[in-house]
């Protein structure tokens, strides 16, 4: 029988001598996961290795660690976390809470798609301020044949912001000061000019895009990492709302603009006609 195979540059396994379905050893990008990485690598270094295929420098590890802390919990007002809490409050499965967070947090408004689009902007514009200013002034292009809805604002900026918020400024300042963060440093230096061109303040997605670029990620890798790194907050807020219960969770007021009103019951109509 011609057995099909899975091609991978990431993972290598040796089977246990008596069981082809159990690994005796696993190597990730050449490193022995359980014999070497488990003992010597941090989780954040292993995460970097998985995505980039090489061990990070100390500066890269600190940058990814800082980004992971900054993104871990956007807080319960964030749409993705809100979605996860909608799962938690009703007693939905844990996986569905995270699926909800991923689905909502995937979008072009504050989500991973926005990070991908901002990283594509970095690829196109680099550190050329004039290119950024021209690009930011242009309206985002709608592709009707794309499954993604058209972005409503320039990627990496806050569509409803008044000024760059404290957490964004603090994250940018910390990450930009690390070694090996030239895009973040440039962003720090040119933030005011970029915000002026966009007409909007910088958002956390914009800082994340620059950080992920400095980590050497492709836009697709950046999109994936952003999705992953924001899950911890979604998970704990979902669990917390499950404890609080639905009576303590907002349901909101409805204003129905085309309410037909209560339907007349058939019996009543018949009685009225009798």
């Amino acid at each position: 029988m011609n057995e099909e195979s899975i091609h991978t540059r990431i993972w290598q396994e040796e089977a246990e001598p008596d069981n082809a379905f159990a690994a005796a050893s696993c190597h990730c990008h050449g490193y022995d996961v359980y014999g070497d990485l488990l003992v010597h690598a941090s989780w954040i270094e292993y995460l970097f290795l998985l995505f980039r295929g090489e061990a990070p420098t100390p500066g890269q590890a600190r940058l990814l660690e800082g980004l992971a802390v900054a993104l871990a919990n956007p807080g319960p007002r964030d749409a993705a976390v809100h979605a996860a809490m909608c799962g938690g409050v009703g007693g939905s499965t844990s996986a569905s809470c995270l699926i909800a967070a991923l689905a909502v947090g995937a979008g072009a408004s504050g989500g991973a798609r926005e990070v991908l689009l901002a990283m594509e902007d970095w690829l196109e514009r680099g550190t050329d301020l004039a290119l950024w200013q021209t690009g930011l002034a242009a309206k985002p292009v709608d592709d009707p044949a794309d499954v993604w809805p058209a972005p409503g604002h320039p990627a990496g900026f806050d569509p409803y912001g008044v000024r760059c918020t404290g957490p964004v400024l603090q994250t940018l300042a910390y990450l930009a000061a690390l070694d090996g963060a030239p895009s973040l440093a440039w962003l720090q230096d040119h933030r005011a000019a970029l915000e002026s061109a966009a007409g909007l303040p910088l958002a956390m997605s914009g800082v994340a895009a620059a950080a992920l670029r400095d980590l050497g990620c492709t836009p697709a890798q950046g999109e994936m990492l952003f999705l992953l790194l924001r899950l911890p907050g979604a998970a704990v807020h979902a669990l917390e709302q499950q404890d609080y219960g639905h009576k303590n969770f907002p349901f909101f007021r409805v204003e129905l603009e085309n309410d037909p009103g209560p339907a007349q019951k058939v019996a009543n109509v018949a009685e009225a006609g009798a």
Partner: protein
Amino acid sequence: MNGPQLLEQQVGRLVTRMGAVFPGERAVFRGEDLHASLKDMGWLELYLFGITGRCFTPQQISVVQALWCYTSYPDARLWNNRVAALAGTARSTGTLGIAAALAVSEAQIYGRGVDLRASEFLTRTRTGVDAGADLKELVRDEIKQRRGIAGYGRPITSGDERIAPMMALVRAQGLDGGPHLRLAFEVEKILLAGRWRLHMNYAALAAALCADFGLSLREYYFASLMAFLAGMPPCYLEAAEKPEGQLFPLPCRVLSHEGVARRRWRDAPLKPEAPG
């Protein structure tokens, strides 16, 4: 009015024309009482009404229903179905497996990505032809620009087993005269006569029919997103009925490693050395 003021106006309220439930009393669906004026609507009619706000003829409903039925294959090898089946063999829940399988169906080389591109091509091309453009030129330009046309050609085989039964139904319902459907077949003729040798596939047929029924691109996207659904639960169920883990088991030898050679990790800078 600035950003926060715009948001402030929407705090704590849902302004909608789509509907609401009045618990214990009634439910409104797009301005209609769900349990009174819409009570006799079939599920697919209601689904399309929810997307479009419009009603469709029984003939159109039967065609849309068949569009879903004829492409619901309970074959657990198919990538999206395999997700549902793997959820079954891994003893996850049916809802999780099928929700994930539907999400995976939003792919670029099949499913929703192709559906949207096929529909966009046909509607754009029809506009061009109506404006006097030459169809052969439009087809040639499309292939040149995008290296292919969504809805034409198929990766595994050139024929598409769904087209003949679908067209038989479409003819029986008297819905075979629409302009997008005609255009779809004219494009196929051009592609078969030229050096491309590409047959029309189901994506172009479905997109053409729904465009003829008046569905916009975005409406078509939502109308088609459950096209594969009926094939998914069988994949989950059979995997769940079999002993756990017996669907597509993969022995270590199937991993064909093509990466770097083995090496040693340097001392990790962030983690203290393990004791001893």
